[in-house]
């Protein structure tokens, strides 16, 4: 039996397939402005890549902010439960998760059985989310993917004091005007975002080992800043971004 999970985030759409409790494959595309279409597209692409037809899929669960727009899913569940399940599936030791996504960041506390015990999410503001990093990357004319590499070359991270994304952006612009090194500004941005995310982890008194999931986990600079803040190492898998979709597929197999 094959099961699918589809995670429609605000920036990327992810899909995963599970067979006999083993991961068959995953796929990621940009969500774009049309989450309905993104769900169909990412699912079709994954089926094609895995040489599987729709009729072989026994159940589908959708998740992510666009979870309600996946009309062909059997059920929609939130990212919290899917990331929890995904992390537990990838590594049953995991007790804590930090997920930094496009518009939400969250910290999740798992019990020994991989069930969500508690969670905390960012408040209504974009500070400490992927969107914050995206805005900053634009202001600095750096590819989002390259932010991490840049910040690793910093010698003295700049201090960003504004929490608000809009104010932080103007702070960054004035730093550019003062010709501060771009690497340092970027490292400063990561520290500022990491500080916000660490608050969530501390709020729920997160337990180790902690896995970082979500697209931002690919950003080494952000992972570094977070580890410094938290005072321990984070586990980052190759499929951090796909983790929510994987969890959704696992949950689909239990429907």
């Amino acid at each position: 039996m094959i099961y699918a999970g589809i995670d429609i985030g605000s920036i990327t759409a992810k899909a995963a397939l599970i067979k006999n409790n083993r991961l068959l494959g995953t796929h990621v595309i940009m969500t774009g402005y049309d989450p309905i279409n993104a769900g169909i597209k990412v699912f079709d692409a994954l089926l094609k890549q895995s040489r599987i037809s729709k009729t072989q899929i026994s159940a589908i669960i959708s998740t992510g902010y666009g979870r309600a727009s996946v009309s062909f899913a059997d059920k929609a569940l939130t990212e919290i439960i899917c990331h929890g399940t995904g992390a537990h599936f990838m590594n049953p030791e995991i007790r804590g998760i930090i997920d930094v996504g496009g518009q939400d960041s969250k910290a999740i506390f798992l019990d020994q059985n991989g069930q969500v015990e508690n969670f905390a999410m960012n408040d209504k503001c974009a500070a400490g989310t992927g969107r914050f990093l995206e805005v900053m990357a634009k202001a600095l004319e750096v590819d989002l993917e390259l932010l991490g590499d840049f910040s690793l070359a910093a010698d003295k991270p700049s201090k960003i004091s504004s929490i608000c994304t809009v104010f932080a952006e103007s702070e960054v612009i004035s730093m550019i005007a003062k010709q501060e090194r771009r690497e340092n500004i970027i490292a400063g941005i990561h520290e500022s975002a990491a500080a916000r995310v660490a608050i969530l982890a501390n709020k729920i008194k997160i337990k180790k080992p902690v896995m970082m999931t979500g697209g931002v986990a690919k950003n080494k600079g952000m992972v570094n800043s977070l580890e410094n803040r938290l005072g321990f190492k984070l586990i980052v898998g190759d499929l951090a971004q796909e983790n929510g979709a994987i969890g959704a597929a696992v949950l689909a197999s239990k429907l």
Partner: protein
Amino acid sequence: MSDKLSEKRKIKSAKKMRDIMTTYYLDAMTAGQNNKQIAWITSGGPVEPLVAMDIIPIYPENHGAMIGASKMGEDLCIKAEDMGYSSDLCSYARADISCSVVKGGPIGGLPEPDMLICCNNICGTVLKWYEVQARFYNVPLFILDTPICHTRYSPEIAKYVQAQIDEYIAFLEKVTKRKFNYEKMAEVGRLAFEAQLLWQKVLNTTAHKPSPMSAFDAFFFLALIVTLRGTKIAVDFYKELLGEMEQRIKDGISMVPNEKYRLLWDNLPVWYQLKWLSQKFSDHNACLVADTYTSAWCGAIQYTNKDNFIGSIAEAYTRIYLNIGVDQMAGQVLDMIKFYNADGLVMHSNRSCKPYSFGQMDIMKIVREKTNLPVLMIEADMVDPRNFSQSQVETRIDAFMEIIKQKND
């Protein structure tokens, strides 16, 4: 069939309450013609002496709730900000201050006050708010200062507040140019006491599974215990409402169709999202069975002496939920969780109401430690919808309910 069922679920007394409230506001609007005076009073203020003096009490906060529920809060808040008030100011205050100027809102503004009674047992915001209004309407203002009882009601506090209660009565005599009627006061006190007992009994009915009503209904039926406390109208109404609830229990009528999970709500309602929120929880088979807000109007009944009401006012009005220490608040929340057999706690972190929201993180921690129940914190504001993000709140509620289901099923 399903229409019939949902018709059965409707609480019949609702119509009666609407009528009573309409009459109450009409009376207030025509007070001048009937030679009656109007006092604006804060929601936690001692209203009974006003009733005893035949002064019509008007609650700007109740009006604020109406503004919020009729989704007129945003415009009025913006108007207040145009006038120079900060967007961080409580949205009840913002809506009331601007409404006085533009005569807007669902009932075209409140009837003008002859005096203002401000008690800071709920917050410090009301002090400045009522000062602003006293200048605007150029009417006398009485301030009752009730120190916070962090751990206890000390003899010093008792003496200090009692002296002010005496001043309060002198103030009313001066403004009305009439002697205070202690006999009538005793009668009003008895009625106020009885209404509070009845209100508590109404709220207690939700301990039954399934619950005959939800906190969303309590938010609505609260209006009378606030505005008409001390009158026979309130007593009669709550008797009837209690009867209806008891009948519903007998008939097995629940408010949420398939009640499976029972939740406790903390803080003021999100007035402009009541319908969406109640549907959201109901879709998850969850009923908000009780809340810390509506129970505040009978929470201090243990300090009230029905045979010497005026003598116990000082203590009863000082020891209300928002005027005690966080440990004691958490204690009350824990008691409620037990009494109502709740599966989780939903906390509304209310941008407007600082005294209510300030200790919530600690209460959350205490509840988690003592009960291990899931606790959800959602961020919103009771009147200003600009502080509410539906999709974010939805994700949090869905996730919270998924956890509760995982734990219970």
